[in-house]
């Protein structure tokens, strides 16, 4: 890359990391990074972008989505009927064609994120056995930096190490597995429950202290031990948790127990909306919101962070490593159902669904998501997400921004959902409106801090020059849907919504140390149970395109 200066002049800058709240500033870029203004006043930028009157923010960061790998690709294959009717993504001289729907093709995914001002995204659930597949798809997903979380909550070696009370072995295995897959942090999906699903018809665990047969461990032990190991490894991000009992009435107790099980360890609870339900088991009449209780606990515990998993009304495709959940959803919606169990590691469930504003349950899910944004006091620990595509598409983020920033719009929308929402959630009484500064936190600076990405989510010297420039508009949906300019690593990739130069984007991974002495036992165990050779499992660094190691804390 050239060493020329690129200056974004006179924009209204939002940079919460440095406490900059809508001040007029210049931003200097060199070698794809943000740099201090040159001390020599005679230095002229080789290129200047006049941002006067425009809003300047760091590029958006989606810390929890499903955009690559076997699960996502299977969902694409499964939904020709949705893709056929969706918007077309037509080939241009610089961009590839593709398809949309709730699960866009890879190139389309990159273009659409960039077109919305997002420049980084993390896939939340990858079985390491399929990591190679993910790296291949990521190389075909332009415009954004990418990384993924590695499924470990039902990994046999993890459960075996916990059962044998071997925390050092567990820690080394986690480091080895992250290194083998070139992943970012351990992900726990319905810890223990997926293994039970593999063993029994309709099998699952329903509480933190149920025993997982054959492995003789409990979900609580998995959460305690893995979160501790992650902190001991000083990984940039915490353990990333999809708690047990997702979507079930009354599951808020399980969620609270999960938070408590973390003790002092860091923990990120993903799509918390799906885990904040009161009411009796499978009893719709008592189904209600428990955000107040859970948000209170989160506020009081700085080791805990969440992303929301907002539900939007309309059709989408649910996809999860939570096999039993997929079975439950396909039965309740009566749609086609895909399920795949990955040896030693994970499960997978996919089924199309539709969220209806006429449905009590769906309306409450929508309201509970908004409650989380509006009730949680510290925006640095609440991240915007739709758990794309489970709650809705990532393309709904501008809609969510408007719901948060514009109280009248929110109240108008509330009139069109199931009336019971008024009694069963506190949403109607919430008057809070987000500022641009706070929006910048929950979509950029917050996720960057939670993920431990020192070079992202801010506009200070040393930051990656991933920058989004918006044209101010009272209609916040319009403002955030169509950025004026999007810059990735110092390159203007989007201009007025048009993808100009689809740069490739980096692969973000961690490389913690492990005790190599475990490899002997690991190899023996591996050859006994896996269907691929131990030697062929780890992914060499030279397989990756534009890899960037993110340092441990």
């Amino acid at each position, binding site marked *: 890359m050239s060493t020329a200066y690129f200056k974004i002049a006179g924009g209204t800058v939002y940079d919460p990391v440095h406490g900059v709240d809508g001040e007029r500033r210049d931003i200097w870029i060199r070698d794809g990074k943000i740099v201090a203004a040159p001390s020599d006043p005679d230095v002229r930028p080789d290129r200047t972008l006049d941002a006067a009157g425009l809003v300047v923010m760091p590029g958006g960061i989606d810390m929890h989505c499903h955009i690559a790998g076997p699960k996502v690709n299977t969902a694409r294959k499964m939904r020709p009927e949705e893709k056929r009717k969706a918007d077309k993504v*037509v080939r241009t001289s610089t961009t590839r064609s593709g398809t949309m729907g709730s699960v866009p093709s890879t190139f389309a995914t990159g273009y659409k994120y960039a077109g919305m001002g997002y420049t980084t995204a993390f896939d939340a659930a990858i079985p390491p056995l399929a990591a190679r597949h993910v790296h291949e798809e990521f190389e075909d997903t332009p415009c954004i930096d990418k990384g993924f979380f590695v499924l470990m909550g039902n990994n046999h070696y993890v459960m075996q190490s916990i059962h044998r009370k071997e925390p050092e072995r567990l820690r080394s295995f986690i480091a080895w597995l992250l290194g083998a897959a070139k992943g970012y942090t351990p992900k726990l999906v319905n810890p223990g429950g997926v293994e039970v699903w593999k063993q029994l018809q309709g099998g699952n665990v329903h509480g933190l202290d149920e025993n997982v047969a054959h492995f003789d461990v409990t979900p609580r032990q998995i959460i305690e031990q893995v979160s501790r190991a992650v902190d001991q490894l000083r990984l940039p991000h915490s353990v990333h948790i999809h708690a047990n009992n997702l979507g079930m009435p009354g599951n808020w107790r399980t969620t609270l127990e999960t938070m408590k099980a973390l003790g002092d360890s860091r923990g990120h609870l993903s799509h918390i909306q799906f885990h904040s339900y009161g009411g009796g088991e499978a009893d719709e009449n008592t189904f209600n919101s428990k955000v107040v209780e859970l948000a209170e606990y989160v506020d009081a515990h700085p080791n805990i962070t969440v992303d929301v998993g907002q539900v939007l009304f309309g059709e989408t495709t649910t996809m999860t490593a939570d096999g039993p959940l997929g079975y439950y959803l396909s039965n309740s919606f009566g749609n086609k159902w*895909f399920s795949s169990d990955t040896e030693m590691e994970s499960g997978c469930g996919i089924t199309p669904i539709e969220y209806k504003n006429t449905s009590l349950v769906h309306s409450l899910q929508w309201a509970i998501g908004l409650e989380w944004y509006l009730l949680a006091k510290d925006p640095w620990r609440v991240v915007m997400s739709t758990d794309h595509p489970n709650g809705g598409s990532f393309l709904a983020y501008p809609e969510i921004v408007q719901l948060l920033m514009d109280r009248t719009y929110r109240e108008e929308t509330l009139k069109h959902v199931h009336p019971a929402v008024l009694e069963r959630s506190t949403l109607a009484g919430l008057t809070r409106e987000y500022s641009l500064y706070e929006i910048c936190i929950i979509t950029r600076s917050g996720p960057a801090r939670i993920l431990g990405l020192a070079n992202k989510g801010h506009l200070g010297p040393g930051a990656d020059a991933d920058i989004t420039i918006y044209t101010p508009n009272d209609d916040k949906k319009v403002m955030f849907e169509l950025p004026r300019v999007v810059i990735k690593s110092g390159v203007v990739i989007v201009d007025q919504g048009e993808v100009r130069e689809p740069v490739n984007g980096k692969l973000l991974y961690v490389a913690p140390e492990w005790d190599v002495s475990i490899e002997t036992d690991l190899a023996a165990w591996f050859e006994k149970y896996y269907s691929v050779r131990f030697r062929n499992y780890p992914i060499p660094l030279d397989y990756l395109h534009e890899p960037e190691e993110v340092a441990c804390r």
Partner: protein
Amino acid sequence: MSTAVTKPADPSVKVIEDSTCTFCGCVCDDIDITVKDNHIIDAKRACVLGKSWFYNHHADDRPSCLIEGRPASVAEGVDRAARILTAARYPIIYGLSDTTSEAQRVAVGIGDSIAGTVDTTTSVCHGPSGMAFQGVGEVTCTLGEVANRGDLIIFWGGNPAESHPRHFTKYSLMPKGMFLPNGRKDRTAVGIDVRKTKTAKAMDLFFQIKPRSDFEALWTLRALAKGVEVDPKQVKDDTGIELARWQDLMDRMKAAKFGVILFGMGLTMTRGKHLNSEALLSLARDMNAHTRFVVKPMRGHGNVTGADNVVTWQTGYPFGVNMSRGYPRFNPGEYTTSDTLARGEADAALIIACDPMANFSQPARERLKSIPYIALDPKDTPTTRAATVVFTTATYGINVPGTVYRMDDVPIFLRPAFPSPHPSDFDVLSAIQRRVKELKQ
């Protein structure tokens, strides 16, 4: 990671451990191959098909490129190929099941650039199963799950004993698994087919059904699974098997802890095709109301599963993808290669690593013969012999590194043994893509 090359005494001999055989969908990655002077003299653990794959490998002494039968430079061939493809109004790209996913990704990109149609051998293999999956979904798993948990294994309309020889020993029948400490003894194996094949002879139970009655047999089992009363006489007439035997099978299926149905092209190629597959996928789904049950198509070629994955992630659709409008469209029976050729619509073709001149219907072959087309193949085939431009390419897995996807979508790493004098599919396709873009300027 540990190096996979050990150096024996004789310096001219090289052993590559845990190399991958790409001949069939099993994609065994545990083959130790011994190489002496660019010849494979041993392929430890390879099956009869694998040994033939490795031992018969020799860099074909044909030139790397032929244009209308005359030797030409690769550059000339690339230019001619790009001109044929850009001049065409309905060009098709077909094959792709025997090359790396890296090459497949470039091929789909060419299809996009020339606004053509991209299809893979899936459409004449398990394409119908893919359509069935789009209808009802699929309950499945990786092969390691079969090895570790599968206590009832049903082989339906396939003959892995001859088409996937190591499937029994590595994945489905013999292995001692986590929940099956005694291996074969802990499993019940059931064969359902119209022929008493070598596979049938390895089974505990065999159902020799009437030819073309797979759908009726599957519907009978679906009825029994749901407890629907059926007429014994009609069941016997329809399937050639007594109801009592079907009932016994259903009882065993319900009693199994983890049932597995592995099926072949006896379903997808026989009258009923995708709806035979849909009946089977539906049965496997139904069974999950009683116990854990999975189903898995036995994919044929080394990387046909990769072709499905690559075409899907780049376009959103798995095979038979038409991009003539500038965006992808999908409609099996319309954009699939057997159809675009047999109906005389395709006016140019890029054929990669497959042999339609030997395996397609007469009308399809006659059309292909009558249009300009380019063929990439390591070997001399009826398709390469009739092509306008032929590239002799290096063999994936043996000469070329990269990624392939096993029949259960598990991506597998390739460890080539030695280089080839010929370019790889990836090299040739990348050059064609560059030339196409130049011509489009």
